[in-house]
């Protein structure tokens, strides 16, 4: 009796350890996380439209059907990231995710500068370079420093009703996801 109680308690301690290990390891090994799904549909350093408002969307099913979604994967170890898009919508927002799908930073059209989407994402070293010689284009951009190298940005554009379909599509197709090469950064490797 005493022995079976002992066996059972060891089993439950093991169950607890297994439970904790699985929960902690899922983010590292999930085969169908957001990054893995985007990897299948989109090349890095360019926006692809993942979802259009009002249409079914198998890639990211849980996103709002009233929104158009564009996503772009980046790798800061190659270059700083510059994101921009043209247009005025009723609402848009953008979020930066790291490789594991965690939200690093987000803002929307009202918190953007002059309601324009312009975003520069840099790592600490690139930030130091940028500070030394800030190009004029940095003035009107939201500047975000992060330690994560790989990640993706995701733009959400609201289509309030059918009449907004064209502006939303235009906004998403105008979105650019580029390596940000200012003069200072370009000179850096040579000098």
């Amino acid at each position: 009796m005493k022995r079976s109680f002992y066996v059972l308690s060891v089993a439950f301690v093991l169950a607890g350890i297994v439970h904790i290990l699985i929960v902690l390891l899922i983010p590292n090994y999930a085969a169908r996380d957001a990054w893995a799904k985007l990897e299948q549909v989109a090349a890095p350093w360019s926006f692809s439209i993942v979802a259009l408002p009002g249409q079914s969307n198998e890639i990211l099913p849980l996103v709002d059907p009233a929104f158009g979604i564009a996503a772009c994967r980046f790798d800061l170890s190659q270059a700083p990231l510059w994101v921009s898009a043209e247009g005025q919508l009723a609402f848009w927002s953008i979020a930066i995710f790291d490789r594991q799908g965690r939200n690093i930073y987000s803002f929307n059209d009202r918190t953007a500068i002059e309601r324009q989407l312009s975003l520069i994402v840099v790592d600490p070293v690139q930030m130091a370079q940028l500070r030394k010689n800030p190009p004029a284009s940095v003035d009107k951009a939201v500047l975000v420093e992060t330690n994560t190298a790989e990640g993706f940005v995701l733009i959400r554009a609201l289509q309030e009703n059918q009449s907004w379909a064209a502006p939303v599509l235009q906004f998403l197709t105008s979105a650019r996801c580029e390596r940000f090469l200012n003069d200072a950064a370009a000179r850096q490797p040579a000098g």
Partner: protein
Amino acid sequence: MRAFGELFAILFVGLFVGGVLAWLSIQKNHGFGTLTIGQWTAWPQAGSINADPYSKAKVAADGDVPLGAAEGIAFHSITDQRGNALRRNCQYRLSGMTPPARLWTLAAHDLNDRALFRSDGRPSNLVSRELLRESNGQFEIFAGPELASKNWLEVSGDGDGGGGIGVVSDDGSSGGDQGSRRGRDELFKLILRLYDSPVTSAGREADATMPTVTLIACKS
């Protein structure tokens, strides 16, 4: 021999129970890191760097891209006011107020998170600015298969697995196990997403009020 049996029992119970607990904890609307208002549940920290391990695991396993703090917050409801599961053959009334937000949307999803579609092929969703409201700002939304005056969120009542474009391929082929599949297919959840809301950006989660979901009637 007895020791071997006990070792086997320990390993079996440990791995099985541990695995099931882990699976359950990311399937269910668990209590970790949730914000519950009435029937509505949100995960304000989901997807953030500070999220608890369960939220992180759930986001990764779902492959979700949660709304950031400056974007908004999503409230899910799978039950009505009395705690009964939402069914597609029933008509519901949503009334009351939402927390302050620049805009919000209401959408019907199936329990596998796919958006539901109306009979005309458009998604089952509403945007707050298009709503008809009372003079005091309150609103009434009817969700269900029956055409309703004021604001109608059409939710397909036939329970054929979404009844719309795009999801047909997935469900049309499902042959066996009709009973349990149908039961799950007939259920749905409502997701109310607040955008640019002080609930997240200013951390004012406590004074949030959400609309109530009341059952009106069911078609048999």
